[in-house]
């Protein structure tokens, strides 16, 4: 059966919780709804066209730019944002400790992307890290410490610490 959802009032499943969205404008992105309607400001917006990756979230386990997702179209999906990671995953800790964070605006998106990359490719080569994170712009770090952070996680997981 074709299901139809109202585009202004709908429910989303985010980080395991159902959230009611009301009075959304037609065409609002998932990013806008997360930030402006639900107060989940961990996902950042820096381009609103899928170029910077700051708004990366997991949609049914897939990494997407939430700015390119029509919010009202994903009522039947499970969304995980940076807030859903819990705050102290090994990826997050490695980013903090490796110097991968400066201004930090790109960090939530990069952490989502790195988390997803390591799920898909548990032991990525440097090239695979680069290809996996190419959709996340960082203007501060020059990426060196970001690659380092991902490699730290890989090493820790191999050593059984996570």
């Amino acid at each position, binding site marked *: 059966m074709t299901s139809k959802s109202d585009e202004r009032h709908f429910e989303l499943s985010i980080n395991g919780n159902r959230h009611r969205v009301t009075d959304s404008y*037609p065409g609002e992105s998932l990013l806008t709804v997360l930030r402006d309607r639900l107060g989940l400001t961990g996902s950042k917006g820096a381009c609103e066209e899928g170029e910077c990756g700051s708004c990366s979230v997991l949609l049914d386990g897939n990494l997407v730019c939430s700015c*390119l997702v029509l919010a009202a179209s994903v009522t039947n999906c499970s969304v995980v944002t940076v807030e859903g990671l819990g705050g102290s995953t090994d990826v997050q800790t490695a980013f903090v400790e490796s110097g991968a964070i400066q201004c930090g605006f790109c960090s939530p998106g990069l952490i989502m992307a790195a988390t997803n990359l390591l799920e898909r490719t548990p032991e990525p080569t440097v090239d695979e890290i680069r290809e996996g994170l190419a959709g996340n712009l960082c203007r501060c770090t020059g990426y060196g410490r970001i690659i380092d952070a991902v490699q730290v996680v890989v090493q820790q997981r191999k050593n059984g610490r996570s």
Partner: protein
Amino acid sequence: MPVAHPRSIGELTELLDEESHTVLLAGGTDFMVGLNHGSTRLAPDDLIVDLRLVAELSTVEVDYQQQVLRLGAGVRWDDLLTAPIAEIAPCLSQAARTVGSHQIRTAGTIGGNLATASPAGDGVCALVALDATLVLTSSRGQRTVAVSEFAIAPKKNVLERDEFIERVDIPITEGWQGYSKIGTRNAMVISVAGVAVVLSSESNTCRIALGSVGPTVILSTEASQFAGTTINWEIASITSADLETVVEMTRASATPIDDHRSTAAYRKHAVGVLTKRLIEQGLTTLRKSL
């Protein structure tokens, strides 16, 4: 202003038949940019039809009997990177790998890329070279259109209001194929110039398609035919003089413009170089398997 989630081709067809103001959502990586920036605005009576749950649209079918690979229009870039597509249509797979980032390849679909009708569409360029055909469906039935005939101008295609792209049929052929694209950085870039070359050692033909050098993706017909007839298929070789002619014909078929991404002159130069390299690379590979 609801969002509809049809789950089958039947439901989708019916919906498009009944509703008059429909907007198809096929991944959203292009469509949402317009909405976010205000260049696209939805009318109050628009019905958004999200194609994501239409089961048939995400199928991949390899039919060796008919020698055809059938891709549902909802197949995502990410799905094109792996077998069987990477083996049967490697130039499509290579094109998919150049599209945006992992985030974009996870969401974007081949049908969306086609419908957007951009001359820079990486997938479109590969599909034109592959001589792929689209199956367009509506309640009035199905029709087929060559991918090379589908886009008629930037952002304009031949889809009727109640029609949708159901699938892409790609002929399976022995031979070699490749896609190359120029951008001014090493990832995440819109094509400044792109070339797809398909060499069929079954039919002894060559098809050369060019992206970003005209209002739509261009099939370099003359260059393709000349290459097809001047390549010595038995030894997989072409004389350098003939190859140079192919390159010149390719350049002649391009009608690029100057814009903020590059110049017309560079684009013409680039499609020639890429065509030459792809044909050389293809013939070298074919020679090894002789």
